[in-house]
Structure formats: C-alpha cells, structure tokens
C-alpha cells in the first residue's frame, strides 16, 4: 500500500476524478472541430487532393508545413526532459510529465499530417513492405517511428509509480474501469528496492538513448528538403538549423502547456517561477542560436547570388512572400525582447510605474498609426490629408520614439508578470516557427527552375484539417491529464527529499560591509527568495 501526503493527494490525484462543466464544454467543442476536420478529410479522400490549394509546381503545402511544425514541437518534451534528467537539473521535476506528453501527442498529430498529404493513404503500408532505405522519406519513417516508440516508453516509465499510487489511493466512488486501468498500468508496482533500482536504471538509459534519436528526427526531416537540388533547400546548414528550430518551438509549446496546466489544475505550488526562469534561460539560448542560423542561411544565399536561389530569396525579402518573412522576423525579435528584459532587469523595476496603461496604449497606437501612414503611397490624394503634412522622416522618428516608449512602458509590467511574459513570447515563437517552415517550403515550391511560377493559397480543407489537428492535440492533452497526474508525483517527492538534505547545510550569512549597510538591507528586503 503506497501512501501520499494530504496536500499532494488533494492537488494532484483528487482532481483526476472530478470533471467540471468547463471540461465537458471544452471536450464538446474539440469534438465538433475534429468532426468537421474528419468530414473534410473524407471529402478530400473521395474527391482527391484537388480540393486543396496545391498544384503544379507547388506540390507540397500546408500539410507539409504542419508536419514539420508538429514534429518540431515534439522536441519539447523528451529532449528537454531527457537532457535535464541526464544533467540532474533539479528544477525539471514538476514539468517533465507535461513535456513528455507534448512529445507523444505532437508526434501523433505530426504523423497524421502525412496521411493528409498522401495521394494514396490506403497504400501507406507500402512504406514498410516496399521501403527503399535510400529514400530520405524512409529515413524519416524509421526515425519518427523510433522516436514515437521511444518517447511512449519514456512517457510511460515514470508513470508507473504514479499509477500505482493512484491504484492504492482511489476515492471510494471511483469507477471500476479506472481501478482496472490503474491496476494494469501499474504492472504490479509495489515500490520495493529492486523495483526502484530497475526503474531508475531504465529511465537513465532511456534518457541517454532518446537524445540522439530526437536529434535524428528533425535532422532527417530537414534532409528531405536538403537532399533535393531545389533552390533554397539544398543547404548544408539545414540539419542543425531544423533541430534548433524544433527545440525552440518545443519549449514554446511547453511554456504554454505548463501555464495552462498550472492555471487549470491549480499547480501553482508545484510549477513556480523557478521553472519559468530556468527554462526561460534555455529558451533565450535557443532563440539566439536560431537567429544565428537564420542569418547564416540567408546571408550565404544573398552573397552567392545564385541564378536559381537569389530570386527565391528576393521573393522572401521584398517580393510576394515578404509579409510572411518579416512577420516571422518581427515575432522572433519581439519574443526575444519580451524574454530577455524581464530576466535581466533588476528586481527594483517591479515597483516602477513609469507610465500608466493609458500611456502604453497611446504609444502603441502612435506606433501603429505612424507605421500605417508610412505605407500610404504618396500619390493617394484622398489619404494625403491623413499624414498631417508629416514627411516620411518625421513619421519614422515618431514610430521609433513611440515604439521605444511602448517597450519601456511595458517593461515593469513584464517584470512583474514573468509567467505572462513567457507565455506571450512562446505564442510569438510558435507563430514565428510556423511561418519559418512556411517560408522554407512554399517560396521554393512556387518558383521552380523550369515550370511557370505559380501561387499557393491554402483552401478551407487545409485550414480545417489544421484546426482539427490542433483540436486533436488539445483533446489528447485534456483526456490524458484526467487519467494521469500532470505532475510526476514521485519525482517531486524525491526532489523534496533532496532539497531537505541540502537544507541541512547551513551557509553563514555574509557580513555586510559597513558603508553599504543601508543599501544591503534594502536589497535584502526587496529581493524575492531565489530558488
């Protein structure tokens, strides 16, 4: 009989057996979206892929973008939690479960995109019957399959002690199927010494093994593109570039998922600022590496001026694809600012109210208006009066000043709301990473060397399946965390033991130096306890 503390039981185990009205409403909405997606998919199977916006030469579209996007998100989990486990980062404990769940579910959704994209989904098993290992697509099938099986195992192993705990602590009114399910999933876990040694050993081995597999997955996806001779794809940097982007977007998804879990399941006592702060440092690092790779990729293309490559680069920088490209850059830059400033500003900024919300709003509006007026062509007489006779230079200065004022005025807010800042940055990064994949796939597709260039606009079918994919992702998440605790209970308890042992060490307080005594006292009062 395994036992659990009262507080852990009330926060982590008991909510699994209760479902409010909001939960059923969410499930209902998700089922409706998925049902619509299923209808559109069946329609696509019956009518053929002509119902999508794809054509010759834009043979790949949003399905491929989503495939890369979701498989990218899957790197959140296993990779992050595996690396953090291997490096024994103690703060990882409350978020490993969520991270690993993202991996498993994102892989399911990502693989589904292949079915959407195939002209003959009924022949998908040919990949295994007639598979040619020379094809990058088969490397991908092997790699993703290995990663999926590995991450399912890696998700399941740390669940065993938790479901055993659930099995032994079921509420009296728990349904019978739960009793059976937990009994089967616990695999006879009693928590004895041999079992613990075996479990810890297996998890340690899996954590090391899963890292190269995870890296191979997105490398191979990039090689699907890079092994062709198509302009803009035939690049040596794609492997690491895609892996970095995958981890980057994965952490973004992890931030959003753990914040939602924290709010909805009231896990504030478990997932604290410490997790956000430390994961934030990794996020910033990935952001910096992403900028570096993006610059390296585009700079070499620009310098090379290749006859086939340069027009595609030009279409991104100032041609038909420039809105998407610069939206990506803007999202990533803003995300970087939002991430970095709350972490590097001194704590005293929390209390500054430099400007009030009205001022923040006004500077944002001024920035937007100035940018908008800059877009108005000079010859449009009807709109000429709007610019109040301001020259473009003046408008640019206004935009710059308003933009800087806006950022400065929201910084104290960001500093006070670290978690909100992280979530905003994560949302921007997810949008930016989706656009990045779009900017890689579509511009190259629509301007091939020898066919007349075309245009690709996703149709309702494609957007519906995108929405249904996201709905499925959330759906699996919602159901899963009604069966299994969102926080790995035993790992958190183990962490408490370690913390307790550490707390036996007593560090002497540094003696404050005389002249700075007042300042030191004040700073000690202001500083939050750091973890």
């Amino acid at each position, binding site marked *: 009989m395994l036992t659990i503390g009262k507080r852990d039981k009330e926060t982590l185990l008991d909510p699994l057996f209760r479902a409010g009205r909001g939960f059923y409403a969410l499930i209902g909405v998700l089922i409706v979206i998925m049902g619509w997606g299923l209808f559109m998919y069946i329609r696509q199977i019956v009518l053929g*892929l002509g119902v999508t916006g794809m054509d*010759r*030469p834009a043979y790949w579209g949003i399905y491929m973008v989503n495939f890369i996007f979701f498989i990218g998100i899957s790197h959140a989990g296993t990779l992050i939690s595996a690396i953090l486990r291997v490096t024994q980062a103690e703060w990882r404990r409350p978020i490993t479960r969520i991270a690993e769940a993202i991996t498993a579910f994102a892989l399911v959704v990502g693989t589904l995109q292949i079915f959407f994209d195939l002209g003959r989904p009924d022949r998908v098993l040919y990949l295994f019957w007639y598979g040619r290992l020379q094809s*990058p*697509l088969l490397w991908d099938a092997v790699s993703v399959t290995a990663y999926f099986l590995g991450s399912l195992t890696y998700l399941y192993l740390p669940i065993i002690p938790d479901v055993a705990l659930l099995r032994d602590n079921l509420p009296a009114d728990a349904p019978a199927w739960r009793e059976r399910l937990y009994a089967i999933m616990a695999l006879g876990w009693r928590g004895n010494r041999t079992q613990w040694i075996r479990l810890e050993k297996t998890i340690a081995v899996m954590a090391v093994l899963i890292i190269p597999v995870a890296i191979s997955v997105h490398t191979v996806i990039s090689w699907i593109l890079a092994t*062709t*001779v198509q302009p803009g794809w035939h690049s040596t940097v794609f492997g690491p570039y895609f892996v970095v982007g995958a981890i980057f977007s994965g952490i973004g998804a992890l931030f959003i998922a753990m914040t939602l879990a924290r709010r909805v399941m009231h896990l504030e006592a478990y997932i604290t600022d410490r997790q956000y702060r430390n994961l934030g440092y990794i996020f910033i690092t990935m952001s910096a590496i992403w900028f570096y790779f993006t610059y390296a990729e585009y700079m070499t293309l620009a310098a090379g001026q290749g006859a086939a490559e340069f027009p595609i680069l030009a279409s991104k920088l100032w041609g038909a694809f420039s809105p998407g490209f610069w939206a990506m850059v803007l999202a990533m830059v803003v995300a970087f600012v939002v991430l970095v400033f709350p972490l590097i500003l001194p704590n005293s900024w929390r209390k500054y109210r430099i400007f009030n919300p009205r001022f923040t709003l006004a500077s944002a509006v001024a920035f937007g208006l100035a940018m908008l007026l800059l877009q108005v062509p000079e010859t449009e007489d009807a709109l000429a009066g709007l610019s109040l006779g301001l020259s473009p230079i003046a408008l640019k200065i206004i935009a710059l000043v308003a933009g800087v004022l806006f950022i400065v005025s929201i910084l104290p807010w960001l500093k006070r709301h670290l978690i909100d800042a992280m979530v905003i940055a994560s949302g921007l990064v997810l949008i930016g990473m989706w656009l990045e994949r779009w900017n890689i796939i579509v511009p190259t597709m629509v301007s091939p060397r020898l066919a007349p260039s075309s245009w690709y606009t996703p149709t309702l079918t494609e957007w519906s399946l995108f929405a249904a994919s996201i709905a499925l992702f959330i759906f699996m998440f919602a159901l899963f965390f009604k069966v299994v605790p969102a926080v790995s209970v035993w790992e958190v308890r183990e962490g408490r033991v370690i913390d307790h042992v550490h707390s036996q060490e007593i560090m002497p307080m540094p003696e404050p130096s005389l002249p700075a005594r007042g300042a030191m006292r004040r700073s000690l009062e202001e500083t939050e306890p750091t973890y």
Partner: protein
Amino acid sequence: MPKWSMVIDLEKCVACQGCSIACRMENNTPVATPEEAWDGREIRWNDVFPMPRAEVGDYPNTKTHYMTRPCMHCENPPCIKVCPVQATFIDEEGLVRQNYDRCIGCRYCTVACPYAVRYFNWYAPEWNPTIEQHLNPQEVSSGSGDREGPAVRPKGVVEKCTYCIQRLDNARQRAEAEDRDFRPDEYVPACVETCTGKARFFGDMDNPDSTVSKLAKSERAFALLEEVGTHPKTIYLQEGE
C-alpha cells in the same frame, strides 16, 4: 543493350504542340477543365511553353522562344533517388519508369524533379465520351502485373512521360512473332512520329552510328539544367539567332 535517347532540334521546332496532342492520345492523359488548368492541375507529359523572359526585341519586332519538353530520362535521376517505395525506377535501357500500382502519392519525386516533368492526379481522370471510347487499351506491366505506361491512372498517383514504353513492347513482340532480331530503329515514341517540323529524333545512344549519337555530338547540343548534374538523355540542339 540499347540506351534510348531523344534529340530535339529547337531550330526546327515550330511550337505546334502536335507532340503534346500525340502524347495525350497515345498515353491516355486525363483532360483538365479550364478551371483545373487555371489552378495548375493540367497534365502534359510533353509540354510546349514559352521560355521565361521569352520575348526578345522591341515591339513590333519581337520574337518568342518556345521550349518543348518531354521527360529528360536522366541517367542520374533525382526522382528515383527519393522515392520511398520504388514506384519510380530506371531500367537497364535507361528509361525512367513509373509504377501506378505502387505509387503512394507522397509527391516527393515531383518536388525533387528540377524539370517539373512529373504530374500528380489531383482528381479521378475524366474524358469526354468520345475520347473515352478511344482510349489506348494497352497496359504495360513491370513484370509483377503492376500497371505502367498508358494504363489509366487512378487519382492520387504520380505519372510521367515514359518515352512511350508500350511501343517498345509492341516492337519487341512483333520482332519475336516474325522470328527475327529486334532492331532499335523499329521503336519511336508518338511525339517523334508525329513531329510536324521533324525536329525530334529518337534512337539508341549506345550505337555510335545512330542519328541521335551523331546529333548529340553537334556543337549545338546541350542539356537542360546541366548544372544540377542529372545527365539528361533528352538532348536539345540550340536555336540559331
């Protein structure tokens, strides 16, 4: 073993599109509606199109260059290298073939082909009733009974120019029935046979005395996109100014 090759003399080509029509009749390519064609879904194994930046000279003294383009049947084809299920493959006579019963419709080959000669069936094929009665009934098989060549393609698979592989089969069978050796000059694709300007030549590149071998040594000979390293067996003769 012959190595099949085509030479197209752009000086002689009048861009009549006769090759495209002959190909369509010979190989049962489905007919696209104007809307489908506008969406870029038409299938033309053999395409005739104006070159990019085709118009030269000042109005009214302008001139347009046209390109006529079957499959290049590369010796180093990027398409077969990426196919995950070996639905497309190169045979020992150098023909790049497509197996409709194997293709899973992933469109990786269409993406990998730098010449965009591969076409995907976005819809189930449709013809008007008259054409439907006169579809080419031949179905070339890759040995295992899988359909190739002019066999009617289902929706969701990729298809491409085969150098009219069914005509090679026919010529071989005829030679066998007449109990004699097959001669490489007995086989020409439909586009070559029909070419109005006699701009197309077809034959065995392994035989140094064949017409294509001699033409390929011409000073005017070039291959499309030589820089991507595909070594096409469809060779062009440059147009004079």
